[in-house]
Each structure stands twice: as structure tokens, then as C-alpha cells.
């Protein structure tokens, strides 16, 4: 599975849509983020220490090379003979061997350490993310969560696998070069430091000018990906409406904006290089001049002066590497802080002794709800659904049907009143027990990527193939699943076979059957497929709901007609309830709805 829907650029799926920051999921302070990572590293003390020692050893072995080359120069200058030369060359070979060994092993240790820390962190983040109250995620926009467990995890993991080892290597080389120069002669080291002020100034100018450009560039790349996805997924529609040119223009605009910003960034980068090269020139000249003066004064040998110059020359690349990676590190720290922010959300906990639902009775007492304070969606709803009873919830858009469905399932907490399932409140049941007792299937269709069997086993991980087939048979889906060449092993979801909307919804109902809850809530679960599909799904739903208490939010009045009882919701209030026939006879709002429907049927 390649998940091509997820832009590799780390683009934010929420794109440029303004989202009030107050609503986003929390972001940790950088200090807190570092503390969490330090704790994870400290959990592996042996690995951490070994990595450090081996890397330092490897860098040190590499730094033995310039003095050894200096030794060769001295041997030649003093005309000491081939024996000494062979020893020097042998030492060079040994240094290469040690450096190679330690670099290879050290790199592996760093990857092992970094990746296992990352794995712990991302598992914690995803585990928490799935348990955060849905309302919280929705307030932030689902793009926020997606960008964290998609883009941010990728940024941090790229940093761990590529940036951190590179920085560790380069940093150690630079640091030990300074040490090496000091050991050769402290005055050579002092001369080399002449480069430092220029490098610091260049870096500061770069961070000030270029980093915001890179940030903007990443945002623009995210928008570009989103625009492509928008245009390509909607290509059939734009062909039908003949608006392909307008879509193409949008793609061209966003792609052009990303291109221009990238070129802007590179121009800033090009402005920094002369400064870095200048710093190298100044430092190298200073070391050579210092070497000249010290050799002239007889303080050091020609070989030492040579070693000093070679040392400095060797540090060119690592210094450049370090300066270029400062931005990556800042970016990774930001991403890390966003991950730690999610990991630190405390999900609702189960009570110490969770209650058990005695049966499938659902009772709502004086339930009222407001998503935004002052804007009530439900008023004072009283409702009792007997165990095994099927209730249809009817009303126009905005009447509060979905809100009521979510309250019953415990996805949202009512602002007023209480909800009891089998005699216990949702709080007494706790999230785990509640999730076993009352479940929700909505019109939102999502087939989880993997095999059909994997998809169904999300509902019951230990289910056998026979149990899966039985659940599929209950919802009338066993036929087409068995007809697939690979049956339950068929790969579905992104990158695999795309089931029809009807089939996907049957899978959702089969998952419900596998979970086998006392209470099931269906929120327009049959709405998104065409009329023929809707009828097929109504039969599937009948199978799935048999023997359960059911609250069905219905579009099609036929569903209402077959329910035990109909509840009509208008503007957040229950205006009418009773069996279909009684309500039709009563001549109230439901009778009017039914009249419109039935007359269309019979006209």
C-alpha cells in the first residue's frame, strides 16, 4: 500500500483554510518535547551510551589522518627513510580501518536508537489520537490530526534517519578538528577561529531570510498537492461541466507559486555561499599565515603546519553541512513539539469499577445540547427505547437527528440531562464498556486499507474466517465476498479494490454485527448509495439490527414505516412519536410528511 493520497511533501491537508489556532490540537513547548525525547532515550541507556562512544571513536580515528599526513611530510622533510614511511602509511591504513568500522557500527547504533525512540513516540501519538474525544478532533479539523500523524511523523523520522546521523558526524568532526588543532598548536586553532564570526553572521542572515521562505514554500507545496488532488479526483465532473480549463488554471497557479517561492529560496541560498566560501578563505589563510610564522620562529615543524592546513580544509564540508541542516533541525523540533502535544492529551479514562448495561434499554432524560454556548441544538428531549425496540428518527436537515445519535453513542456529552444505557449512565460504563455496548454506523463510508478480513477484524480481532462469513451473510454480503477470486484476502481500500458504496456500507454493518452490541445507532447509513443500493442496504440493516435495540436516523420514510416507533424531531424538539399507523392517523407533522411521500408514490 502506497497511500498516494498523502502528499510526500508533508503538506497540510487543511491547506490554506484559516483555522483559529485556539481550536488546533495542543503543541508542546520545545523544552517539553526535548524532555520527552530525552526520557525515551534514557529508557535505552546502553544503546545511547554505546552510540555516543562509537561515534566519537570513529570521528577521532578520522582526525588521526591529517597529523599522520603531517608525519609523512616531516619524514620526507627530515629525510628519515622508507622504514618510518611504511610505519606512517600503515598507521594511515589502520586509522582508515578503525574509522570505517566505527562509522559503520556507530551509524547502525544511531539508527537503532533513533528509530526505536521514534516508534515508541509515534505509537503513543496514534494510540492517543484514536482515543481523543471526536468533538475535539473535529474542532481542530481532521486535517490537523492527519498532518500530525502523517506529515509530522515523516518529518521527524526523516530527521532521525538522515539529519541526526549527519549532524552527529559533522558536528563531531568539526568539534574534534578544533581539538586536533589545539593539540597541534593552540595558535593554529586560534587562527582557524577567524572564520567563525563570518560563519555566524552568514547563518544568522540565512535563518532570518531563508527559513520563512522555506516555510512558505512547504505550505505552497501542500496547497499544490491539494489542488492536484482536487482537480484529478474531480476530473470526471470537470469534463462533464467543461470547466477543465479553469481547473488547469488553478493547478498552474498553485504550481507556479510554489515554483517561484522555491526559486526565491534558492536565490537566498546562493547569497549565503559566497559568505561561507569567504569564511573558508579567511580561516585557511589565517592558519597558513600562523603556520608560516610559527615555522619561521622554529616553534613547529613544516609537517605540523601542513597538518593544520589539511585539518582546516577537511572541516569545510562538515561546517557547510551543519549550517545547511540548522533549518531541518528547527523544522523537526517543531514537528516533534506537535507530536508530543498530541501524545500529552489525556484521553477519558475508564472508571475503576465500570458498570454493566443490564439490557439494551435506552433512556434520555431532559437531554439538551449546544455545540456552541447559546446555540442549543436539542431541547429537553425525553425518550425511552425498550430493549429490542426499533425507533426511527425523522426530521428535516438541521433538526438535530445526528446530534441526538451521537449523544446516545457517547461521542458527545449532553450539555443538560442524562442518558442511560441498560440502567447505567455512559460515564458509569466508561469509554471501553460503552464502546462494547452501543455503536454507531453513519453514512460516512471508509474501507480500511488491507484485506477484507483485516477490515472486518478491526471490529473483532480474534474472529475466525467462518465468523466473518457468518457476519457477512447476516448483512447479505457473503455472496459477493465469496464471489471475489481471493475472497476475504482481497485487498481493499486505498491502492486496492474499490468496493461500491453499497458494498462498503455492508462491510460497515458487518463490523457492527461482529461487535455485537446491545444497542445500535444508524445515522442515515443507507443514504449515500443510489436508490437501488439504498433498498439493498435497508435489507442489510434489517439483518444487522435483528435482536438489538436500534435508533435509526432515516431519510426514506419507508424505513420509518417498518420501525416499531417513529420519533419526529423538529428544531431540536421531539414533536411527535408513536407507531407509523397511529401517527399517520393522527394527522400531525408526520402525516403531512407521509402524505407528500405517499402521494408521490401513487400519483
Amino acid at each position, binding site marked *: 500500500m*502506497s*497511500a498516494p493520497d498523502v502528499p510526500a511533501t508533508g503538506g497540510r491537508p487543511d491547506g490554506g483554510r484559516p483555522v483559529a489556532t485556539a481550536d488546533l490540537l495542543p503543541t508542546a513547548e520545545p523544552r517539553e518535547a526535548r524532555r520527552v525525547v530525552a526520557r525515551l532515550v534514557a529508557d535505552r541507556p546502553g544503546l545511547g551510551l554505546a552510540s555516543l562512544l562509537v561515534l566519537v571513536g570513529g570521528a577521532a580515528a578520522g582526525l588521526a589522518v591529517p597529523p599522520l599526513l603531517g608525519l*609523512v611530510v616531516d619524514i620526507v*622533510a627530515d*629525510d628519515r627513510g622508507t622504514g618510518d614511511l611504511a610505519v606512517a*602509511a600503515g598507521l594511515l*591504513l589502520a*586509522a582508515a580501518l578503525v574509522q570505517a568500522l566505527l*562509522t*559503520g*557500527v556507530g*551509524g547502525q547504533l544511531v*539508527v537503532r536508537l533513533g528509530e526505536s525512540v521514534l516508534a515508541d513516540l509515534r*505509537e503513543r501519538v*496514534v*494510540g492517543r489520537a*484514536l482515543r481523543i474525544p471526536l468533538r475535539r*478532533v473535529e474542532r481542530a479539523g481532521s486535517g490537523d*490530526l*492527519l498532518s500530525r500523524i502523517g506529515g509530522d511523523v515523516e518529518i521527524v523520522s526523516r530527521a532521525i534517519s538522515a539529519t541526526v546521523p549527519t549532524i552527529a558526524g559533522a558536528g563531531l568532526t568539526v568539534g574534534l578538528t578544533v581539538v586536533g588543532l589545539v593539540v597541534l598548536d593552540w595558535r593554529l586553532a586560534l587562527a582557524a577561529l577567524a572564520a567563525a564570526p563570518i560563519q555566524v553572521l552568514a547563518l544568522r542572515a540565512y535563518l532570518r531570510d531563508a527559513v520563512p521562505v522555506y516555510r512558505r514554500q512547504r505550505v505552497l507545496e501542500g496547497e499544490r498537492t491539494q489542488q*492536484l488532488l*482536487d*482537480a*484529478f479526483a474531480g476530473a*470526471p465532473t470537470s469534463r*462533464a*461541466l467543461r*470547466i477543465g480549463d*479553469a481547473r*488547469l488554471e488553478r*493547478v498552474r497557479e498553485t504550481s507556479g507559486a510554489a515554483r517561484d517561492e522555491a526559486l526565491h529560496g*534558492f536565490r537566498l541560498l546562493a547569497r549565503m*555561499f559566497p559568505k561561507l*566560501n569567504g569564511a573558508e*578563505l579567511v580561516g585557511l*589563510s589565517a592558519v*597558513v599565515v600562523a603556520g608560516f610564522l610559527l615555522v619561521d620562529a622554529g616553534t613547529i615543524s613544516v609537517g605540523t*603546519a601542513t597538518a593544520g*592546513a*589539511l585539518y582546516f580544509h577537511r572541516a569545510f564540508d562538515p561546517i557547510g553541512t551543519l549550517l545547511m541542516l540548522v533549518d531541518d533541525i528547527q523544522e523537526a523540533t517543531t514537528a516533534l513539539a506537535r507530536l508530543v502535544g498530541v501524545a500529552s492529551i489525556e484521553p477519558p479514562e475508564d472508571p475503576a469499577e465500570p458498570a454493566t448495561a443490564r439490557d439494551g434499554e435506552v433512556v434520555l432524560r431532559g437531554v439538551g445540547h449546544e455545540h456552541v454556548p447559546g446555540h442549543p441544538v436539542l431541547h429537553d428531549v425525553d425518550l425511552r427505547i425498550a430493549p429490542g425496540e426499533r425507533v426511527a428518527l425523522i426530521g*428535516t*436537515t438541521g433538526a438535530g437527528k445526528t446530534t441526538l445519535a451521537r449523544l446516545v453513542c457517547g*461521542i458527545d456529552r449532553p450539555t443538560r440531562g442524562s442518558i442511560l444505557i441498560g440502567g447505567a449512565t455512559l460515564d458509569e460504563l466508561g469509554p*471501553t464498556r460503552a464502546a*462494547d455496548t452501543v455503536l*454507531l454506523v453513519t453514512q460516512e*463510508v471508509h474501507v*480500511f*486499507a488491507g484485506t477484507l478480513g483485516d477490515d472486518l477484524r478491526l471490529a473483532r480481532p480474534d474472529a475466525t474466517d467462518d465468523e466473518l462469513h457468518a457476519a457477512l451473510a447476516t448483512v447479505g454480503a457473503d455472496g459477493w465476498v465469496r464471489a471475489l477470486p481471493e475472497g476475504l484476502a482481497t485487498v481493499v481500500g*486505498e*491502492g*486496492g479494490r474499490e468496493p461500491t458504496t453499497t458494498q462498503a456500507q455492508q462491510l*460497515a454493518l458487518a463490523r457492527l454485527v461482529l461487535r455485537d452490541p446491545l444497542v445500535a445507532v444508524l445515522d*442515515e447509513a443507507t*443514504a449515500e*448509495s*443510489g436508490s437501488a443500493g439504498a433498498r439493498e442496504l435497508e435489507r442489510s440493516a434489517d439483518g444487522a439490527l435483528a435482536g438489538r435495540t436500534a435508533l435509526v436516523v432515516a431519510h426514506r420514510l419507508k424505513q420509518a414505516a417498518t420501525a416499531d416507533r417513529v420519533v419526529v424531531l423538529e428544531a431540536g424538539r421531539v414533536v411527535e412519536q408513536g407507531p407509523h399507523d397511529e401517527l399517520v392517523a393522527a394527522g400531525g407533522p408526520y402525516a403531512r410528511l407521509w402524505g407528500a*411521500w405517499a402521494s408521490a*408514490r401513487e*400519483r
Partner: protein
Amino acid sequence: MSTPALSPGADGPAVPAAGGRPLLRQVLRERRRPAVVSTLGGVVHQTCEAFVPVLIGVLVDRAIERRDAGELVLWIVVLALLFALLTTAYRVQLLTLVGGLERGEHDLRTALARRVLAAAGIAAPPRPGAVRADVGGSAGAQVTVAGSDARRTVDVLEAVSVGGAAIAAIVVTAAVLLATSLPLGLLVLLGTPPLLYALQLLARPLERRSGVDQARAAEAAGVATDLASGLRVLKGIGAERAGAERYRVASRRALDAAVRAGVAQNLLLGANVLISGAFLAIVAWVGGRLALDGTISIGELVAAVGLTQFLVGPLQRLAFASTLLAESRAAADRVSALLQAAPDREDPRAAEPARGRAEAVPSAVALAVAPTPAGTPGLQVAAGEHLGVVAADPAASSALVDLLAHRGEAPPGALRVDGRPTSDLALDDARGLVLVADHDAALFSGTVRDNVLAAAGPVHDLAAVLDASGADEAVRAIPGGLDGQVGERGRSLSGGQRQRVALARALAASPPVLVLHEPTTAVDAVTEARIASGVRRLRDGATTVVVATSPSLLAACDRVVLLGDDGVVAEGTHAELVQREDAYRAAVLS
């Protein structure tokens, strides 16, 4: 398909070359200037870099060893000049290269987008559910091609520039060494290719393995985003823990893969260090002996050693360039496959300019569908008529809708508008006559207003359109109303809101013939009744075909036909058919 549907004259390759390699050649041809200039810049830069250790050697030789201050000043000035040239050349290389890369990427992406959005469409994969190796598949796969493969293809410029400069650096180094000392020069010249070869030999299987491992590591990210995308569904069935456990398994598998990839990469890194270090030791030994003999000076020894150390850089860059080239070839294959993808339906007049082609059409036109061997029944729709079409088999209505939408190949004359076969028309003109509004039509990110007016002509009555489609009610519930954002692909809206906004968009386009396919599947019964009468009123006197099984919609039609296995099996008004046809009742009322 002979000519791909790309408008000439726009930016991007005008006639995309078939196949990956020709495409790469075309990219290089079109970006000749940046390719040549950046390679030259790279050559100069690398040559200058190679001369830095040579100058260090000269400084040691002439200034430090001989303690000559005049020489010191002279050669530091030379060093400064070298650095000035070096930094200028690098600047030239960087700016021309990224200019070529960014512009080339953008142009190629635009060409890809033009192909995907072309009226001719892209033929569906041969069978449903076929493995999505083909690019015609999901939009996600196409986005990957236009997003990252476009860039990787253009990366051929970087491969040429970096590779060319690296080769130049190796040649210069060898030449300087040969000039210094024949044996040393030969040692480096003859020693380097086997080293390079050994590294490549070592690298290839390791890189392949690490590539496989990295792909596996990326799977965990896929699992996470998949779970988060289905979060509401997951929470609905209380499967948070099962989901987290599934992610943990994927994450551990990714960890193992990443560690294995790390082992391979670091093995390669270690081998790299060892080989170049050992080579340096050999050069130092040989050079030292030559210097002891007096064949070369100390400065020349320093230069030789410095050059050998320097050589590691160009060698690594050459390996990088060859990897880049391989990736570029693979990406170019995918890009080319999409650019050249077979059309869903040939556009007979795609090559003609779009303007000045459309003829004035009357507001009400008659429509005739000829029976096709594929099983589409014959249908006649009078000018201004509202026809309902009901099919017992959903596949039959889909086939009819595809034909009306000019999707897929159809025999000439299968569809006639006012007696004229639409197969003669450019696809855009044919679709301008007959607009098919699918029930799952996509919305585009932007405001509600942008979407409703996306295809509207200059004359439209927005209020009437919103009223007829029931979108006014939906708009009231959307934060920001008409100026509210619909989000990516309209995902900020509910299914019912999306469907009504899409219907409003189709009505606003006000086509001579409007075909509505199941336009009310996601709205409630009350709203559906409102839409049925609203559409009837708004399109009064304009030819309209409603393919649906909803009684409310069908009751509002002048005439309804029932499609069976052998074409039209019954026709009449909705009420008549309900009375007399069992099959109709079964299809519509059950």
C-alpha cells in the same frame, strides 16, 4: 491514440515523447541552456575545489618550507582569486540548475494536469479492481505522478550537471597528478575506476534492499493516515484499541525494516570510508617514497595527498548522479505512460481551437438515443420534454448515463441532438449540448458560490437556482453561507449539502439538455419533494432527463420509461405506470 490531447503553444512539452527515455531526451533538449550552463559552472567549481589542496601544497612548498614572506602573500592572493572564481561558478551552477529544475517540473506538471483534465478522459483500467500499477487508476496515483514523478523526471538535469562536473573534477585531478608525477598519476587514474566499480557493486544490492525496507517503513504512515481518515467510522464501532494495535504492529514492522535499511546503508558507508582511507594510505606511501627519492617536492606530495582526499567528493557525487539518473528514468516511464494514456473516448476535434466552434443552439432540443449493441435501449425525447427513466438493473441506467455523458466509445450516431449525431462534435461541444449531472459529482475547494457558478453562463438567476435545487436551505446551514468554504473536494459539507450544491451548479449551467442521475440520494424525503417540483419549474420548456428511482422525482416528469432487459418495456406517466406495471412498482416503490 495518435495525438495526445495537449493544446499546442502552451508551456510544457508540446508533443510529449512516447516512452521514458525519449521523454528524458526531450526534457534535456528543451532545457539545453540550463543543462549546459550549470554543467559548465559545475566543472569550473569542481576544478577550483581540486586546486585548493594544490595551492595548500604550493604554500607549504614555496612559502612555509622556504620561509618566504613574498611567496606567502603572492599565493594567498592567488588563493583568494581561486575562491572568488569557485564561489561565482557555484552560484552560476546552482541558480541555472534550480531554475531549469523548477521551471521544467512546473511545465511537466502542467502538461500532466492538462492530459488528466482533457475532454477525452483516460480509459478505465481493463477490469474493475485491477491492480493499480497502471496510471489510469486512482486520482491519488495520478497526483503522485504529477506531484513527485514530474520532479524526478526533470532531475535528469541535475544528474547531468552534477555527474558532468564530477567527471570533470576527476579528470582535472588526474591531469594534475600526472603532471606532478607519472607513477602517482597512474596510480590514481588506474586505481579509481576499480574503486568506483567496487563501490557500485557493493552499493547496488544494498541500495535495492534498503529501498525495499524504506518502502515497508513508509507503510506504517499509510496505516496511520488510513485510521485517522476513518476516525469517525472507527470510533463509531468502538474499535480504537484494535486500530491502535494494528498501527503498533505496522510500526514495529516499519521499525525492523528501518533498522535493516540502516544496517545496509551504514555497511556501505563503512566500506566507503575504508576504501577511500586505504587508497589515501597507498598514495601517501607511494608519494612519500617518490618525495624521499627527490622525484617530487614536499609541496607536490601534499598536493597529491590533498587531491586524493578531495577525490572522494567527486566519486560520491558521480555515484549520486547515477542513482539520480536511474530514478529519473523510472519516473519518466510513469510520467510518459500518463501523458500517453489511452483516451476514454477519442475527441474528434480536439486539435481545433476551442473558440469559434460552438454554434448557437436553441434552448429546447430533441434528443434521440439509438439502441446500441452494448445494450443501451433506444429513446426519443421531445424538445422541452421532462423524461423520467427507470431501470430495474442499475447497470442499465449507468450505461445509459455514460452514453449521454459521452463517456467511453460509442458508435457514430448513437446519440443525436435535433437529428444531428453528436459523434461529429468536439467532446466539449457535445457535452455543452447535453450536460450529465452525476449523483456523486465532485465539488472543488473554494466557496459555495464559486462552486454553484463554476459552469454558469453570463445569464443566470442565482436565487432561482438555489431555490430549485434546495441548496438555499443547505447554504443557510453552512458557516459563511454562499461565501463559506466547502473544503477540499467539498468535504466540509455533509453529503446532502454537497449533493444540493452540485445540483445547483448543474442547473446554473442551464444546458439545452440536462440529464440528472439520482440527484437526491443524500437528501431527506421532504427536501426531495421540494427539489422535484423546483427542478420541474426551473427547467420548464427545457429538455430534461431524470434517471432515478425516486417516486417524487418521477411523479414530476411528463413521461416515464421503464427499461428492462430488452429496452423500453413500458412508458406512461408515473401514476399510470404505478397503476398498471408490476415491474415498475417493484423498481420504484419497494
